[in-house]
């Protein structure tokens, strides 16, 4: 067998095994967005109309997609050869928009994000609460504009807390109209 033919055969072997080893069979994808869509198909919801946000911390990227009835949140991480896979610790998946508006906090990604189903809500205000046993303390407050997709987010600083005994939550969400009038409160 001549060398050109052998080279072609080796390339085919590399390609086929590469697809098998690093492709779908091993749940590795070419981008964080592809991981999001693959998760949605595997969990049988979506697909997201669009990617609203990608937040990168180190080798991990949080991808948030827009669903017709909520958000799709998938944690991804860099794998071999520039490929991507689901991040350690599982994923949030679909957040169904049950309330008119809601807000969530991710300590890993130092991010607060949320949605509003009410198109009148143009801006929101909310707080980060540290819970330790029965003690609850507001440690930070944010104001964000809500975009045309009803999505809002803000980066947070690194909060000092004991992850074994304390928890951080995004709470006390208020929604305001264009004129700044309070039109939504979860209190």
């Amino acid at each position, binding site marked *: 067998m001549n*060398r*050109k033919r*052998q*080279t072609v055969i*080796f*390339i085919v*072997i*590399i390609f086929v*095994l*590469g697809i*098998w*080893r690093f*492709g*779908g*069979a*091993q*749940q590795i*994808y070419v981008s964080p967005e*592809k*991981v999001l869509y*693959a*998760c949605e*198909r*595997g*969990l*049988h*919801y*979506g697909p997201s109309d669009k990617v609203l946000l990608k937040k990168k911390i180190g080798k991990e990227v949080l991808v948030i997609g827009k669903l017709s009835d909520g958000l799709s949140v998938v944690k991804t991480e860099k794998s071999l050869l520039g490929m991507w896979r*689901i991040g350690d610790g599982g994923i949030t998946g*679909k957040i169904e928009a049950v309330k008119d508006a809601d807000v969530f906090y991710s300590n890993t990604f130092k991010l607060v994000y949320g949605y509003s189903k009410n198109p009148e809500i143009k801006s929101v205000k909310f707080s980060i609460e540290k819970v330790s046993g029965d003690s609850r303390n507001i440690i930070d407050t944010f104001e964000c504009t809500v975009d045309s997709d009803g999505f809002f987010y803000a980066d947070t600083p690194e909060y000092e807390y004991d992850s074994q005994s304390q928890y951080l939550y995004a709470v006390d969400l208020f929604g305001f109209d264009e004129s700044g009038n309070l039109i939504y409160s979860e209190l």
Partner: protein
Amino acid sequence: MLLPEREEFLKRVLSHVKFKYDHLDIKRELTEHMEDMYDDFMSHGIDEETATRLMVEYMGDPDEIGERLNEQHSCVLGNIWRAVRALAVIMVILSIIPAFNTSLLAVYSVFSGYSETRDRSEAIYDIKRSDTVRIDDLYFKLEEVLYYSDNDLEIRYRTWYQPFSKSVRWSFSLPSRCIYDNMGTQYSDSSGGSSAGLISRHYLIVEGFSPEAEKVIINYDYDGRKIYIEVPLKAGGSE
């Protein structure tokens, strides 16, 4: 046989071939050819010195042969060939253990049966089915419905992903809330389990299923994905 004339000839030929990786093969091939010629001359009664001289003469100009061989044994193609061959070997090695594990699990999942969580002899009746529904890249196949004397209804089904699916392969289990009877009762008390593998086998045991029901209805409807199967039952266990 080690002849200085032959070695000199080979050295001159190889001095033109830039792809050194092939030197050994070229040397071996030319040596064999020259030895055959030498033996041929000797068998015709030609003396050693003449046979050696003729052997080298008959081979031709070593510089011309060397240049031709250099074209045939291209350095660029040769290095690409070596690189992809090495990469192919690495890929094969990297794939052997996962392939073995996957194959073993795949074979096991194909040929293994359902885990017998209940004694089949307690079943009043069982109904074999073969309803297949696809949601996204996942196939759902209802295989059997069993009804037990204590009014438990067991639904057995298997799921598998289509080959080369790009979905993340989460396991899929029917939630009990999608089980109804023909009288509109929705059942929520249940237990179940699944096996892993290429083909997953699942069982769902619905507790307190009405003995009067004539049908069990599987009505899964989530985010536009639907599984709707009606299974006529042998009500009262008379058959």
